[in-house]
C-alpha cells in the first residue's frame, strides 16, 4: 500500500478487516485486564496471607520483565504458518504495553482499595454475604472511577499497539501493512487528499467520544487513587 492506493482497494480493506478483528480481541483483553487488576489489587490491599511479600515482589519483577525476553520464544513458537489474526491475539495479551499498564493497574487499585472504608465489606459479611459477594458488591463499586481511568489508558495503548504488532509479524505482508499504513497516511496528509483524510479522521470519532466522556471519570479516578508515595 502506498500513497496512491485508493481508499476501498482490497489492500486497504484488508487493513480494515484486521483492525476490526483486533478491536474484538482488544475488548476481551481490556475486560480481562481490569478483572486481573481488581482481584490482585484487592488481595494486595486487604488480605494477609503466607508469602505475601515474596509473592507480590515476584509478580512486580515479572511484570517489569522486558518484552524482548519473550520475543525469541514467540518468534520460534509462532512458526512460518502462523496467521496474522492468531499473532494479533497472542501479541495483545503478552505485549509490554499490557504488562506496564497491568503494573500500574495493580498498584493503583491496591492503593484505591486501601481508601475504601473497611466497614463496607464488614457490613456485607455481617449481613451474610460471602467474600466474593463482599468484594463484588461492597469493595468494587467505590473503585469504578479508577477502573474507568485504567480502561481509558489501556484502550489508548491498545490503539497505539497496532503498527508494532504488524511490524513483528513474520509474514510477508505485515511490513508493507505497518509501514504502508503510516506512510500512506502521511502521503494523504501531505498531498491534501481531503476525502481520504476525512475518512481516516471520521474513523477515530468513536474513540474520541469515549475519551471525552471518560474525562470526568479520569478526574474522579485521580481523586480516589493518585500515584504518590
Amino acid at each position, binding site marked *: 500500500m502506498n500513497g496512491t492506493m485508493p481508499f476501498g482497494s482490497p489492500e486497504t480493506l484488508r487493513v480494515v478487516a484486521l483492525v476490526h478483528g483486533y478491536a474484538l480481541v482488544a475488548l476481551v483483553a481490556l475486560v480481562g485486564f481490569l478483572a486481573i487488576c481488581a482481584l490482585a489489587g484487592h488481595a494486595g490491599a486487604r488480605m494477609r496471607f503466607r508469602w505475601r511479600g515474596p509473592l507480590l515482589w515476584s509478580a512486580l519483577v515479572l511484570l517489569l520483565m522486558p518484552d524482548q525476553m519473550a520475543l525469541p520464544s514467540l518468534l520460534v513458537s509462532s512458526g512460518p504458518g502462523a496467521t496474522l489474526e492468531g499473532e494479533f491475539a497472542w501479541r495483545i495479551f503478552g505485549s509490554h504495553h499490557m504488562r506496564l499498564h497491568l503494573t500500574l493497574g495493580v498498584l493503583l487499585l491496591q492503593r484505591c482499595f486501601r481508601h475504601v472504608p473497611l466497614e463496607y465489606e464488614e457490613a456485607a459479611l455481617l449481613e451474610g454475604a460471602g467474600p466474593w459477594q463482599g*468484594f463484588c458488591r461492597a469493595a468494587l463499586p467505590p473503585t469504578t472511577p479508577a477502573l474507568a481511568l485504567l480502561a481509558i489508558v489501556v484502550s489508548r495503548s491498545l490503539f497505539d499497539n497496532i503498527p508494532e504488532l504488524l511490524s513483528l509479524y513474520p509474514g510477508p505482508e505485515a511490513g508493507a501493512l505497518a509501514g504502508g499504513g503510516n*506512510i500512506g497516511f*502521511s502521503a494523504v496528509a501531505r498531498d491534501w487528499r481531503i476525502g481520504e483524510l476525512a475518512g*481516516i479522521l471520521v474513523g477515530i470519532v468513536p474513540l474520541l467520544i469515549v*475519551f471525552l466522556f471518560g474525562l470526568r471519570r479520569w478526574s474522579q479516578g485521580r481523586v480516589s487513587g493518585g500515584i504518590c*508515595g
Partner: protein
Amino acid sequence: MKRRRDLLAALFLLPLFLYLLLFVLLPTLDTLAISLQHRVNYGPRQFAGLANYVRLTANPMMPSIAGFTFLQLASAVAITQALALSLALGAARLGRRLAHSPRTALLPAIGIVAAVFLYRGFEPGFSAARFQMFLIDFPLLSLLPFEERWRIAGSLAHWADTLGAVREFAGFTFCVYLLGALALPRDVLDAARVDGGPAWRRLWTVTLPLLAPTVLFATVTDLLRAIQMLDQPQILLSESLGEGSSTGLIYLIEVSFREGLFGYAAAIVVASYVVVALPAALLGNNGVRWLRGKGWLNPANRMP
C-alpha cells in the same frame, strides 16, 4: 481459618499469576533454553552449549550497538522526564491557584492531558518519519540536490527518533507526574513557601524529595518503554545511519528475521538483560539507602 484465608488470597491472585506464567515466565524460560541451542529458520533444535554467547562476545558490532542504544535511551528518557515534570508541576500549581477542591483543581490540567493524550493516541503515523519528509521538502533546503537533502535528513535521524520517543512518552509520563504533584501535601508546600528561599531550592529540597517515588516509577516505566521501541527506530535509523547504528532491539529482529538465527538472537536477549538487570539489582538497595541517607526519601529531615 488461616488455610481458608490463604486459599481465598490464592484465588484472587490466581488470574495474575496465570497471566504471568503463560505470557512472561514460560516464554522467558523458553528463550533461555533457545539461547543454548543451535536453531536456524524453524529447523530442529540442537544443543549448542554456550556457543551463541561465545559468538556474541566476538561480534565487533556489539559495542557500537550497545553505545548507540544507551545514547538513545538516555537522551529520550532524560528529555521526557524534564519536560513532563516541569509541565506537570506548572499545571498542578495553576490548578491549586484556581481552585481549592482537588477535583476542580484538576480541571485546567485536563485540557493539557487531553491535548497531549489525543495528539499521540489518535495520530496513527510515525511523526518522526514525517519530520524527515518535512526536512526533505523544506523550502530553504529545496535549492540543494535531493541526495544532499536526504543526507541532511539522515544525519538528523537520531534526534528525530529521540523527539518522536519524547512525544510518545510525554503524555503518559505527564499524567503520572500530574497525579503525584496534585497529591503532594499542601501544608508542607505552604510551609516551605512561608519559610522563604528561592523557588529552585524549594523544588530541590521539598518538592522533588516528596515526588521521589513518582520519579522512580516514571523513569523505570519510560526506560522500559524506550528499550522496547521498535517501529519508529526501525524506519528512521536502519536506512539512514547504516550498520552498527541501530538499537539492540532492531539488531535482534534483524538477526531473527533476516538470518533466522533464533539461538543467537536469544543469547543477545539474555546477555543484555543480565547486563542491565544485575547492576540494577546490586545498586538498587544501596541506591535507596544512599538516597535515605541524603534525606531524599524522608523530606522531613530536609525541612529548614
